């Protein structure tokens, strides 16, 4: 492939449409067109000209705007598909995902699961799509910004007549004396903040060239945004964990290397008062409206070198009330109030009671998170806890079992020891249910009340990538503004024998440049250029 030498003497890269220096059309068919295509200044988009090695082929694929647009369209469609049914991470953990989708949504749900849409946003092909858009952005931009920069930098003041003639704004003024001074015009141009270059009495006035870089600045912002997203996968950059903590508990905060502990003093859920003058009606229409979710906590820092499991010496760092949007912040971490569970069972009380006489022989209070093995009631009365099922169910073999360690549905096997039954009587006690395996018990454990505790669900968040997103987003907007609010305008004025030629070009807002030229030429004796496109349309 050869470089193209223009008749003006400038050497252009292969594939150039308009000479970078004088603007003469270098490609045969372009010379026949009435107006020049000024996109990218007619510079050589190299990708479209070289196509040799595999590297070039990949490069050319991603350099195509058409490919880029398709990638975006496909990604949009895929993203939309992912919202039809909830993603796997949001389905309730009642059954495995494979059953859940079919159970809830029928064959459509089954298909959704089979196709992998239940985990769409972290699927390999979705990430590949996003990554391809990123690559396309980089290569498209590079492939255009470099030649464009080159062409704008190399442009000569004295452009070739065929370049001027084919500009949308073009006009010729006949003059007696071709050496009439342009002083007035230059003055006016300067007033309009044009930068002016002169060569042999010809003028190139230009302003707002930086607006041409707007789209590329915008793309740089997008790429920084994507890099931010990528960095979230780097260990330590982004933490998103959950901490469930009961009232009264002190627990180590996950992801802090065992350095920080949190005590939950109290969880509060406040609702709006119904007897409110103004909102009375609205409130009674919508039922309970939450006003505040709040966890009153104390943050501690480990003060010694104790290891996990060992009782640590804790220094209080601060007391804080975590509310929605008011996280507890420390050392780059933030604890957010996100969930709660009201009234988790914590203690259950029973009276040891004679079934016939209803006489009571003492009360036991069972800590549901840590029951004692034996409760001594004195006078020869005691109760043994033989089995405990905090989250009771009958398993597939019909045996009593527990589903978890959370006391959602506590059940006990008690052995009631009394002076007249020294070996004890066995009783199975669950909520609203008592089973006597030997059927003729004289005593029973009569339910005597419960105590509950609230549980706070907090998110542990650390995000070192946020500022990158901010920088990316800011650059994105800078690029948009740069490209949208400024125009790149150029005006060429040339002396040719008894004529003065004037041509104008802008990348947008033709009305604006026309008005500006009119003001500039006022009193100069040079005629306003015609709008060739408008003329054609009028005809």
């Amino acid at each position, binding site marked *: 492939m050869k470089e193209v030498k223009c008749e003006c003497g400038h050497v252009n890269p292969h594939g150039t449409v308009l000479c970078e220096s004088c603007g003469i059309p270098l490609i045969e068919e372009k010379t026949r067109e009435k107006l020049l295509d000024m996109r990218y200044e007619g510079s050589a988009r190299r990708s479209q000209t070289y196509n040799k090695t595999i590297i070039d082929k990949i490069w050319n694929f991603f350099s195509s705007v058409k490919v880029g647009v398709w990638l975006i369209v496909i990604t949009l469609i895929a993203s939309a598909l992912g919202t039809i049914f909830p993603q796997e991470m949001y389905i309730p953990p009642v059954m495995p995902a494979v059953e859940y989708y079919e159970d809830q949504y029928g064959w459509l749900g089954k298909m959704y699961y089979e196709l992998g849409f239940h985990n769409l946003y972290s699927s390999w092909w979705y990430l590949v799509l996003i990554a391809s858009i990123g690559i396309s952005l980089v290569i498209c931009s*590079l492939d255009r910004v470099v030649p464009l920069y080159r062409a704008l930098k190399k442009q000569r003041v004295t452009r070739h007549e065929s370049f001027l003639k084919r500009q949308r704004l073009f006009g010729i003024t006949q003059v007696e004396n071709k050496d009439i001074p342009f002083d007035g015009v230059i003055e006016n141009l300067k007033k309009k903040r044009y930068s002016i270059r002169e060569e042999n009495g010809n003028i190139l006035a230009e302003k707002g060239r930086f607006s041409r870089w707007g789209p590329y600045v915008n793309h740089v912002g997008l790429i920084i945004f994507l890099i931010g997203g990528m960095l979230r*996968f780097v260990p330590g950059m982004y933490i998103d964990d959950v901490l469930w903590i009961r009232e009264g508990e002190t627990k180590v905060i996950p992801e802090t290397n065992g350095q920080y502990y949190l005590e939950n003093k109290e969880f509060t859920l406040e609702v709006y008062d119904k007897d409110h003058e103004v909102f009375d009606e609205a409130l009674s229409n919508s039922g309970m409206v939450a006003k505040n979710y709040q966890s009153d906590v104390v943050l501690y820092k480990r003060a010694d070198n104790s290891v996990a499991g060992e009782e640590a010496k804790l220094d209080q760092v601060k007391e804080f009330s975590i509310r929605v949007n008011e996280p507890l912040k420390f050392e780059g971490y933030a604890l957010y109030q996100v969930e709660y569970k009201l009234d988790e069972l914590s203690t259950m009380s029973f009276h040891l009671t004679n079934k016939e006489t209803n006489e009571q022989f003492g009360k036991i209070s069972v800590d549901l998170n840590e029951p004692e093995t034996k409760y001594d009631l004195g006078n020869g009365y005691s109760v043994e806890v033989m089995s405990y099922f905090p989250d009771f169910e009958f398993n597939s073999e019909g045996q009593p079992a527990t589903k978890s360690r959370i006391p959602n549905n506590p059940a006990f096997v008690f052995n009631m020891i009394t002076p007249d039954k020294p070996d004890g009587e066995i009783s199975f006690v669950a909520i609203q249910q008592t089973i006597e395996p030997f059927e003729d018990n004289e005593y029973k454990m009569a339910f005597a009340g419960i105590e509950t505790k609230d549980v706070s669900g907090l998110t542990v968040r650390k995000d070192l990538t946020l500022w990158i997103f901010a920088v990316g987003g800011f650059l994105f907007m800078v690029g948009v503004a740069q490209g949208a609010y400024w125009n790149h305008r150029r005006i060429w004025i040339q002396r040719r024998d008894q004529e003065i030629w004037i041509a104008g070009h802008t990348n947008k807002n033709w009305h604006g440049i026309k008005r500006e030229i009119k003001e500039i030429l006022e009193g100069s004796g040079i005629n306003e250029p015609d709008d060739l496109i408008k003329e054609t349309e009028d005809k």
Partner: protein
Amino acid sequence: MKKQRLIMRSIILILLGAAVVYTLYANFTKDDIQKVEVGKKAPDFVLSDMNGEKHRLSDYEGKGVLLNFWATWCKPCEREMPYMDSGYKVYKDKGVQVLAVNIGESDVVVNEFINRYDLSFPVLNDKNQEVLTAYGVDPLPITFLINKDGIVERVHTGEIIKEEVMMDMMEEIKP
């Protein structure tokens, strides 16, 4: 000129490709990343067993340690317990210690389970889930093989389905 262009393009494509490959790799391994890495020292801890005796992991240096996390309601944990027990009986005299850490259930529940399966190895109870957090345990069961120098040799997530597999694991960390 042409060569330069090819080199330039290759470098840019390689950089972009590397970023994409890294992201994909990181995304697909993020679920397997344990706080405790193979080849690194296992985090030390102290926990009491059901008899009140304290066990410090670092005290077992010189011995191999099979560290298992379990819960009574976890079916696969339950199924692998007998294998662990028979393995322990064979290997305890060969320098392998079994430490089974319960995730902080009540003593009543844990003791009943130990009695039901007649377990002979020490069962520790992580009441505050501190060790669980330090080891980033999720899901259950999970078994860490720690060699005589306290280095994590291997992490096995999920059930150990055969007695032979359990035996092989203990053989692996035998000093």
